[in-house]
């Protein structure tokens, strides 16, 4: 049995990194290890979360282990990595480039600048193992100085299993039961998510293909990004399509399942993703994916999605139309996705990869 501390900047609901952290704790606890979570901020009810400062007194022995999740500027995380005298693993989820927040949120711009520059400091703290959520992220680690043989790609644990098995919000399903083609975007309303392209693609589909179309934008907003949200609202007004776009805000897992059940396709126009969990959820829920090739998106979806290199709304719209009118190809694509999910991204598959890489590290004497 090993004492393990998992350290992460923030723990919140409906968040990819938080889901990875919580499931990682479960997996390691099930293997008989003593696992505790440390975070700077937490908005999760009923979770025993301790401040990062407590981690160092918890990690006493040299065969204890620290797993730090790096996703944004986090001074306490870097300092703990540097000071801990035990075995160390860093899980890198990527950091949004600060340019996206320019003129929108100075605070986020600074946090992301810090997060980017701290990568080198983390490598300087000499972790025993580097885990990257994707090969795209692994390239960042290698560039910052991590060794090839210490760097492994482990996708983040996710909630797609629960989404598959869980209940749906039936009232919500009923309220949108009509002939509309429902399109879905899942992800926080953040400046790196490419909402303008999304709206343009949707408008193109709406005006040129099918005026019986609806777009759900599912994900939490943030007061810090109000000017971004306002610009999106103006854009929607200009297009005269405000009655066809629904901003849901943050939703429960039940509602999320309903939106996936309603969706005829998931549109992913994000401009920066370190992994992109919504793609995995869509694959698990058998929803076809149309996306612009950006950052880790092509790697995660691979041949189970229609992915376009050019950001051309007509390609998006035509893709949606194609999926609506070619059932056999749509089903083939969807089942390819479902198989990809089961083989690579179900928590069981990830757990095996994770333990294969991490367990030798835990069990070997330092």
């Amino acid at each position, binding site marked *: 049995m090993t004492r393990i501390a998992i350290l992460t900047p923030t723990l919140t609901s409906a968040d990819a990194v938080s889901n990875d952290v919580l499931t990682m704790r479960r997996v390691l606890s099930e293997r008989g290890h003593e696992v505790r979570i440390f975070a700077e901020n937490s908005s999760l009810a009923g979770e025993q979360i301790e401040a990062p400062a407590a981690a160092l007194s918890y990690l006493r022995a040299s065969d204890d282990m620290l797993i730090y999740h790096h996703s944004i500027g986090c001074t306490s995380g870097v300092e703990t990595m540097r000071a801990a005298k035990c075995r160390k693993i860093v899980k890198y989820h990527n950091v949004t480039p600060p340019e996206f927040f320019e003129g929108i949120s100075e605070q986020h711009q600074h946090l992301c600048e810090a997060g980017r520059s701290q990568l080198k400091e983390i490598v300087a703290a000499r972790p025993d193992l580097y885990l990257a959520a994707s090969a795209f992220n692994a390239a960042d680690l290698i560039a910052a100085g991590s060794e090839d043989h210490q760097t492994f790609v482990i996708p983040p644990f996710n909630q797609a299993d629960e989404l598959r098995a869980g209940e749906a919000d039936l009232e919500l399903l009923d309220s949108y039961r009509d002939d509309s083609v429902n399109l879905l975007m899942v992800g926080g309303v953040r400046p790196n998510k490419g909402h303008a392209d999304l709206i*343009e693609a949707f*408008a*193109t589909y709406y*005006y*040129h*293909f099918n005026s019986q179309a609806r777009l759900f934008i599912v994900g939490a907003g943030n007061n810090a990004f109000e000017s971004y949200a306002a610009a999106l609202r103006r854009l929607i007004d*200009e*297009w*005269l399509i405000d009655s066809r776009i629904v901003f849901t805000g943050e939703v429960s897992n039940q509602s999320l399942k309903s939106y996936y059940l309603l969706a005829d396709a998931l549109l992913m126009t994000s401009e920066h993703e370190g992994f992109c969990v919504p793609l995995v959820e869509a694959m698990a829920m058998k929803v076809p994916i149309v996306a612009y090739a950006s950052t880790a998106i092509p790697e995660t979806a691979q*041949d189970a999605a*229609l992915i*376009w290199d050019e950001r*051309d*709304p*007509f*390609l998006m*719209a*035509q*893709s949606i*139309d*194609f999926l609506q009118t070619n059932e056999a*190809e749509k*089903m*083939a*694509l969807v*089942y*390819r996705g*479902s*198989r990809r999910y089961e083989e690579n991204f179900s928590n069981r598959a990830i757990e095996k990869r994770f333990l294969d890489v991490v367990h030798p590290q835990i069990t070997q004497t330092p």
Partner: protein
Amino acid sequence: MDAQIETDGLDLAQLMSQIRKDAENRKRNSFSNGDPARYRQLILQNFNAFLAPQISSLPPLQLQPELENRDRYHINDLLGFHDEVFVRNAYKVILKREPDDSGMAHFLKNLRNGRYSKLDVLSALRFSSEGANVNIQIEGLSRRSVLRRMYRVPVAGYLLRLAVAIGRLPVLITNFRRVESHSMAQLDRVATHINEAVAHLSHEMREQSKANRTHLEALRTHFESLQQQLNDLKATLQLQINSLIREQEKFAQIQNVIRQNLSTTQSELSLRIDLTTHHAREQEELQERSVAELQALKAQVEKQIDDLIERLQRSRMDLAQQETRLSRLLDGADSTPSAPAQQPAHPEQDHLLDSLYFSLEDVLRGTPEQIKEEVKVYLPVLENAGMTAGILDVGCGRGEWLQVLREAGLQARGIDTNRILVQQCKELSLDVEERDALEFLGSLADGSLNAVTAFHFAEHLPLETLVKFLDEAGRTLKPGGLIILETPNPENLLVGSCNFYLDPTHKNPIPIPTMKLLLEARGFRCEEVLKLHAVESAKIEVKDQLTSHLNHFLYGPMNYAVIARKPESE
């Protein structure tokens, strides 16, 4: 279901290049040429044009010229203004300020009711103390104002005004003409301005309507393109509907054909089924008949075989008996016929062991009650054969079997060579004699017995004697009569190796096949072998083959009986 979906056949690259081609086509045929920004702009422009039409305006018409700012003025510079503008400009030029409200009201009132001329106003301002202070030079003002002051002298002033008026009449007339022409010029300017305004307005309206026409044209083009798309869609839809209808018709036809085929097939099938059923029934009957015939044949053959065996066995028994007779004859020929017919069965010394054997009987065989219970197994054999008398028990011992027979109402006799045992039997009123078996049987007539039983008897005899016993039994039994022989079973190893020899009078253990062989050889037909008296209580729990074998060989049946029959006569 999931597993049946074929995904490997999906060529993503080919599919995406098709989508790309379709998207290009769609762009080319679209109203905005596929540029979403332009599309959006077009929509907005057309709406804005309707919401906010832009008309340029003409400069306003000015009948009074602007006042020029100068140091010196001529009186005519100011007389060109009228009314309020005149008063305001007079103030500005002469006093260098805007008029005060009371001044303005005063002058306007007097100008408008004709009490003051414009010159009066100018003089009043110029030659007021404020005007004197400012001291602006206005050519042509001073003289007239001196004169005008003289006009205000009563009577003489009037006469003076009259004289001046008459004197200035030509000037007045000239002035009047100038005013008239000025008025006419102003009227012309007004008319020209109105004409220009009308022309401008109509031009603007033409331009606007032209712009509107352009916008409308753009919208009409858009709507036409939409209409065209709609028509295309309608046509496609109609085509699809038609093709659907055709498909439906085809489907209905196919359905009909299928239905017909189905009904034909069904009737054929039912016909075939009937036929097959019929055939099957016939076949079955045939089979039944064949089976019955075969069974009859089999029974017949079996009977013939049985008869043959029966005849064989009879011949054997006959042969055996002929042998016996022959050997007796030969014996008789060899020795002097001194032996009397009624020789005692056993010489006296043979009884030396009688008491010993009597005492052993309990130990070796068991208590009478046990034995009685055990031998009851043979009762049904005799009862089933319908035998109620003519039963001989050879070596009857303590008479347990005879008692069982008596209790069952069957008549039986017993013989034994042990005097003590015979005595005991007699005490039980059993029909028992102390006789030697061979000798006793020899005294009986052919076919005089129904059954011969001999329990634990054969193993006491040497082979030769046993053979003779069998031959005598064969002779004295009626055709179909039974012989039952019980003896220790050497298949049980404990019996074969040890227990058999507990009785010192035993000769050799006789294995079941040997016993059957002997009986068959002497002409009997073996009916049944009963294996008896397994030591159930001693058996160990069966776990495997070994324990099972162990149980069989150590604790298996300790005795067996062969039930054989004398063949029926022909």
